[in-house]
C-alpha cells in the first residue's frame, strides 16, 4: 500500500510536466496562428540552418530513386523502343497530314479574298479534275445543284476570273476555263474603257478581239468583265493586256490556271433568277457627248478600281 502511494506521488510531478508540455504545444499553435514576424524569422533561420544537413540526408534518398528510375528504364527499354517506333510512325503520318493541310490552307487562301458582287453568294469548291490535255480546258469541281450552282455561274479565285460553269450535276460541276477555245468573255479595258471580247485559245494566253478600230490598249492594262449579256457580273478581273504583232493583242489571265485547286462559285441567291441580276447598271456610264465615235457604249471602271 505504502509502495503504491509512493509510486503515485512520484508520478504526480511527471504528469504535471506532461500537462505543461501539452499546454505548451497548444500555446505554440496559437503563437504560430498569430503569424508573428518573430516566429517566421525563427522558422526561416532554423530551416536555413539545417538545410545543408537535410540535403546530405536527401542525397542518398534521391540517389536511390535515381537508381530505381534507371532500373525501370533498363527494364522497359524494349517496350520503350516499340512505343517510340510507333510514336515515330504516328508523327510521320501527322507530318504528312500537316504538309497536306498546309498546302490546302495555302490554296484556300487564294480564294479567300475573291471579289464577290453584292448580288451573288460565294460557294467554295475543290477542283477535283484539271484539264488533262490541251484540247479541252475544263475542270471538274465539287458541288453542284445541291449548292445552287447552275450553268453560267462565274468561277473565281482571289486573283480573278477562272471561267464559268457549263454543266452542273447534283454534286459536281464542270467549269469552262477562260483559256478554253470555246470561252468567250465580254470584257472592257479598265483605264480606257474600250469593250471587247476575250477568246480562249487552249493556251496560256487569251486573244483580245472585237476591239473598236480606234482603241489602243495599253500594255499591262487590266481587263475586267463587262457584264454584257448578263451572264457574268461586271468588274471581275480577267487578265492583263499583252501587245502582240501589229494590232494583235493578247490577255494574260490574272489567275494562274495551272495552280487552281480551290475556287469560289458566285451563285445567285435563292429565288433570284437570271433576269433579276442588276449589277450591270452599276458599271454603266454613258459616253461623253463630244466623244460619241464608239460603236459600243462605254463603261466606267472607276468604281471597280476603287
Amino acid at each position, binding site marked *: 500500500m505504502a509502495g503504491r502511494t509512493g509510486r503515485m506521488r512520484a508520478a504526480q510531478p511527471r504528469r504535471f*510536466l*506532461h500537462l505543461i*508540455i*501539452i499546454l*505548451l*504545444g*497548444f*500555446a*505554440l*499553435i*496559437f*503563437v*504560430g*496562428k498569430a503569424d508573428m514576424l518573430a*516566429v517566421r524569422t*525563427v*522558422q526561416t533561420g*532554423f*530551416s536555413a540552418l*539545417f538545410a545543408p*544537413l*537535410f540535403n546530405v*540526408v*536527401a542525397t542518398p*534518398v*534521391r540517389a536511390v*530513386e535515381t537508381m530505381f528510375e534507371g532500373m525501370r528504364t533498363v527494364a522497359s527499354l524494349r517496350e520503350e523502343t516499340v512505343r517510340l517506333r510507333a510514336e515515330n510512325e504516328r508523327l510521320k503520318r501527322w507530318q504528312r497530314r500537316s504538309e497536306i493541310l498546309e498546302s490546302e490552307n495555302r490554296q484556300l487562301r487564294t480564294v479567300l479574298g475573291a471579289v464577290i458582287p453584292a448580288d451573288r453568294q460565294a460557294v467554295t469548291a475543290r477542283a477535283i479534275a484539271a484539264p488533262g490535255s490541251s484540247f479541252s480546258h475544263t475542270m471538274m469541281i465539287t458541288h453542284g445543284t445541291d449548292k445552287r450552282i447552275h450553268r453560267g455561274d462565274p468561277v473565281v479565285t482571289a486573283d480573278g476570273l477562272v471561267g464559268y460553269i457549263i454543266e452542273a450535276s447534283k454534286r459536281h460541276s464542270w467549269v469552262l476555263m477562260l483559256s478554253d477555245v470555246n470561252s468567250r468573255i465580254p470584257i472592257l479595258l479598265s483605264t480606257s474603257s474600250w469593250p471587247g471580247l476575250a477568246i480562249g485559245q487552249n493556251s496560256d494566253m487569251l486573244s483580245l478581239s472585237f476591239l473598236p478600230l480606234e482603241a489602243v490598249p495599253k500594255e499591262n492594262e487590266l481587263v475586267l468583265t463587262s457584264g454584257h449579256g448578263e451572264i457574268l457580273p461586271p468588274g471581275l478581273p480577267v487578265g492583263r493586256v499583252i501587245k502582240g504583232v501589229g494590232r494583235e493583242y493578247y490577255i494574260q489571265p490574272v489567275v494562274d490556271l495551272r495552280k487552281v485547286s480551290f475556287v469560289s462559285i458566285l451563285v445567285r441567291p435563292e429565288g433570284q433568277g437570271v433576269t433579276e441580276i442588276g449589277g450591270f447598271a452599276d458599271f454603266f456610264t454613258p459616253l461623253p457627248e463630244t466623244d460619241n465615235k464608239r460603236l459600243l457604249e462605254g463603261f466606267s471602271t472607276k468604281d471597280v478600281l476603287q
Partner: protein
Amino acid sequence: MTSPLERPAELSSPIPIQILLALFGCFLVLAEGAFAQWKVFFVAGPLLVLAYVFYMNLFFSNQLSIIAVFLIGLFSELMFFEMLGMNATALVLVALITRWRSPVLIHSDFLEIWSAFSLIVLFFSSFKMVIYFIAYLSLPAISDIFLQVGMTILLFPIFYVLLVSAASAGQFILRTKMDSRIR
C-alpha cells in the same frame, strides 16, 4: 562533502543515450522529408517519426522522454514550415497514449501491435485535422491524408523490423561496451 568535479564520473548515465535517440528522431524527420521527394510518396510520405515514437514509447519509454518527443515534433515543424505546435502536441499525445497502453501491448503479438499502431495513426491524423480545421476553418485534401495514413500503416511492418534490428544492434553494442569497462 566532495565537489562535483571530485566525484567519480557517472558512466551508466542514460542521458547520452537519450540524446542520441532524440537526435536519431531528428534524423528521421529529415529522412521523412527526403522520402517525400519520391514520386510514390509525394504528399503521402510514410510517418516514420510517428512509428519511431510509437515503438520507442512501447518498448523503451525510459530512453525517449516526452520532452525529446516534443522537441522532435518542433524540429519537424521548424524544418518544414508546418503549423507551429501541431505536430509536437500530436506526437506528445501519441507518446502518452502509447505509454498508457504499453503494459498491455508489450506482451502482445505483432498483429495487435500493428492494430494499435493503426489506431494511433488515425488518431494522429485526426488530431492534426481538427487543429487545422479550427485554425483555418477548412479541411486539407482528405484523399491525401487517407493515402498517407494507409501508406504508413502498410509500411509499418518493414519499419518495425528495421527498428527491432537497430534496437538489438544498439543493445549489443552497449552491452559489449559496458562489459569491457567492467573488465
